[in-house]
């Protein structure tokens, strides 16, 4: 089946989300759709799935124009999509999930034909070597396996075009490799695969054709032989340096010293098990690991948002575990939270107010409990300039900013105090290439000014780019601390739990 989008234009008011986009997807190929957040990739897919009517242009299947009224039509035509966030019912088994919405019945009482669904799962699973048990319950499966269930679901509906939306965001490097292998097999069996992503490495590894979208327009097509710099420049629209420019670290005294830190939650689940490490001034320690292996609890315990069950942490000789958050911040901690919209910003507050969220009670922003609006405004404008926060006014709400600019607000706030330690969790999640560059630069400047920096990131690229040392976390423990030039395979194995560097090797 050949799928073609011809001259698709979709406008929202004055804003053109898709500007006469042409896309040809041929069977047996992997087509990468590359673009930054907000480039118009999702709009295009929503047009394809009949959720939006295009203002101009048409969709053709095998050279015949089609008109989809909704996802049902698109699926009936053989187009399926695996979303970034899986659409699975957690307490159900694999077979139950696969037949969900397409239940077959048998017998006079129209009972569910679970056996047929099981058989279907087994058949597809063995055809592609998925190794998925039809009776396994979804919530017991690792993320990579859940993704395979989604793919089985799509294939069971005889999808000929399979769209994968940011499929590797939640996977370990090994799982990513497995997925890419699956994609190759699907391609070889004649399925067309559309890979929506902003990760250049994967695109280079697997795509047959690359279409780059920027600001709603197709700005170019490229071959997989294109270099990462070329692809990134196409995506961003200007030259981008992919390597982080940094001088060798000059580690000084130990600033953060963590000894035997454990966190057990109220249900008795241990999230952090006897974690010990230190970070020196002038160096960046990056914590690598798949999300949900205790990184969040570690940063929250250091901040004071979570009380550790045992162990302690000292910041420049001062014990910070057990202190109120305000005192820890006062002691010289800058904290960039993992979830900036939930923990880092008050979306309804103005940018100016967000810039003083943790210093509002200090001079010069206030005096004897009274805010000083003029100072807040002046300082806000200064920060806007220094950190290149793109907004017409600092009195707009933080919620009106793009993700990258929101992150700049958080950074501007945290880096404008004298810091001994900066903790940043996934500091570039969801940011475009340009903003990533900027954020990385500021973090390295902070290191070079002598602060200790602790980065938590689930993006291996980021860890490798920033770290002076890498600590790998797995199941609440640090499985090893390795130099930044450790190869990715070793890191990957460590992230999957291989306990030391030697075991992994």
């Amino acid at each position, binding site marked *: 089946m050949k799928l073609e989008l011809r001259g698709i234009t979709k406008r929202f008011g004055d804003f053109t989300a898709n500007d006469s986009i042409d896309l040809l997807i041929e069977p047996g190929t992997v087509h990468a759709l590359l673009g930054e957040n907000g480039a118009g990739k999702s709009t295009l897919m929503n047009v394809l799935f009949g959720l939006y009517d295009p203002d101009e242009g048409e969709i053709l299947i095998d050279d015949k124009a089609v008109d989809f009224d909704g996802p049902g039509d698109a*699926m009936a035509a053989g187009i399926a999509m695996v979303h970034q966030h899986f659409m699975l019912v957690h307490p159900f088994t694999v077979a139950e999930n696969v037949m969900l919405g397409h239940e077959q019945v048998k017998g006079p009482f129209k009972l569910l034909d679970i056996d047929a669904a099981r058989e279907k799962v087994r058949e597809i699973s063995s055809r592609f070597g998925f190794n998925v048990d039809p009776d396994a319950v979804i919530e017991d499966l690792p993320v990579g396996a859940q993704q395979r269930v989604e793919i089985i679901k799509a294939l069971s509906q005889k999808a000929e075009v399979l769209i994968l939306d940011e499929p590797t965001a939640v996977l370990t490097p090994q799982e990513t490799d497995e997925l890419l292998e699956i994609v190759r097999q699907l391609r070889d069996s004649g399925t067309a695969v559309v890979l929506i992503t902003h990760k250049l490495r994967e695109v280079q590894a697997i795509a047959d054709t690359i279409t780059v979208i920027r600001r709603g327009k197709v700005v170019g097509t490229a071959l997989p032989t294109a270099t990462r710099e070329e692809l990134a420049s196409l995506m961003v629209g200007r030259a981008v340096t992919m390597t982080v420019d940094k001088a060798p670290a000059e580690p000084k005294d130990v600033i953060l010293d963590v000894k035997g830190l454990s966190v057990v939650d109220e249900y008795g689940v241990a999230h952090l098990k006897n974690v010990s490490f230190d970070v020196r001034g002038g160096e960046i320690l990056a914590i690598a690991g798949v999300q949900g292996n205790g990184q969040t609890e570690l940063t929250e315990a250091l901040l004071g948002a979570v009380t550790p069950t045992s162990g302690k942490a000292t910041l420049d000789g001062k014990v910070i575990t057990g202190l109120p958050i305000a005192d820890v911040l006062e002691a010289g901690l800058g904290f960039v939270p993992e979830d900036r919209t939930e923990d880092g*910003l008050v*979306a309804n507050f103005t940018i100016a107010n967000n810039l003083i969220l943790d210093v509002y009670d200090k001079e010069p922003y206030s005096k004897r409990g009274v805010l000083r609006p003029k100072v807040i405004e002046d300082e806000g404008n200064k920060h806007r300039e220094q950190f290149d926060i793109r907004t017409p006014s600092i009195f707009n709400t933080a919620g009106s900013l793009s993700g990258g600019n929101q992150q700049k607000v958080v950074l501007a706030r945290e880096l404008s105090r004298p810091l001994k330690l900066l903790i940043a969790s996934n500091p570039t999640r969801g940011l475009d290439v340009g903003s990533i560059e900027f954020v990385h630069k500021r973090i390295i400047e902070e290191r070079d000014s002598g602060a200790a920096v602790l980065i938590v990131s689930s993006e291996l690229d980021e860890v490798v780019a920033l770290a002076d040392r890498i600590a790998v976390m797995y199941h609440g423990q640090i499985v090893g601390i390795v130099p930044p030039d450790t190869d990715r395979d070793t890191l990957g194995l460590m992230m999957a739990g291989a306990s030391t560097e030697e075991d992994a090797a």
Partner: protein
Amino acid sequence: MSDETPPPAPSVAAATAAEPPVKKELRERPETRTVFREIVESSWLVIVLAVVASLLISSVLILMANTEFREALPYFFSRPSDTFGAIGDAVGGAYSALWQGAVFNAGAGSFSGKIAPFMQTLTQATPLIFAGLGIGLGFRAGMFNIGAQGQLLIGATLGAMVGFLWHLPFPLHLLLAVIGCAVGGAMWGFIPGFLKAKTGAHEVITTIMLNYVALNLVGWLLTLEFMQRPGSDNPQSPVLDSSAQFPKLFGSQFALHWGFLLALGAAWFTWWLMERSTLGFQFRAVGANASAAKTAGMRVPVVTILVMVVAGALSGLGGSAQILATQPSLTIGIAGSIGFDAITVALLGSSRPVGIVLAATLFGGLKAAGPTLQVQAGLPIDIVLVIQSLIVLFIAAPPLVRFLFRLPNPRFVKEVAA
């Protein structure tokens, strides 16, 4: 296959919410929070239109209650003029009575008689301003304080006790009585604040229950000898010393008293507290995003308690406008329905001090006009309640107002503009 439900459909639909220029960051989080925000932060336009819509619907009800209209309706097609005449008389009469009773009585002989209705309106508005400020402050700090009624009642009780148990010279006595009202309300606000901070007990439930506790506690207090008016079997306290009462603002011919000025002062103070003080900054931050406030080092439980104490004190001052002025003797009915009307006032005023003063004046006007409506337009007093309730109903459902007046969805407009 067409009759089957495609599983990914909801997901794709969900993705549309975070479309192109719209950043994921714009999405509101939990559903209940969104509804709460929508109610609390309605735009001025929606509020004005809600008032208009409720007056329109009330017109229909006024017609239904009007005998001439009902009599003229059956022969509408033979003599439509009768029906239209009845409509004009009924609706026009009702709203002109409303105007006369609440704003300006052109028919009165003297100037003071002409403006007396407006003075009455402001007098009725005074306790609503106080209590509305207390509730609005809670809203902005993320606390759904339904307990203004109880806080007002306890405030009035403490103020009354200062007023009739102690006997002091004028300005001092009044000052202490006012403070008594504030302290009483603050105490009653502290309880749900403390419970929420320490145990997570939801303030909606605790404040509602504390309203009953307050009501019956005061009822019991009034059976005690020292609280009872000598020589009376009714559950009412002695009349407060005149030295503990608010003097009249423009002489004895108007009911308006110093409490109104205090209410305006409280409105200014609330504005200053919320917009200019570091404490108010914390109140707002906790209300808008408690986890970000916590991450920034604010002590959310302490803020929660303080919010309820300040809100309670404001509501308690609402009690002063009753006990130290219009009804200087404590009964269990002293709070009327002020604590609940104040919720509407706070919503109508978008939880902002200026809005609350205006909304309280509107409601004070509806209350002040009640008797005139009844006597002059022959309307049941209930129609005033119906108008009030309809206003709330429309404000609680902005999409309904937008639908009625064909307004665009502001969220969509924001997306397009982004």
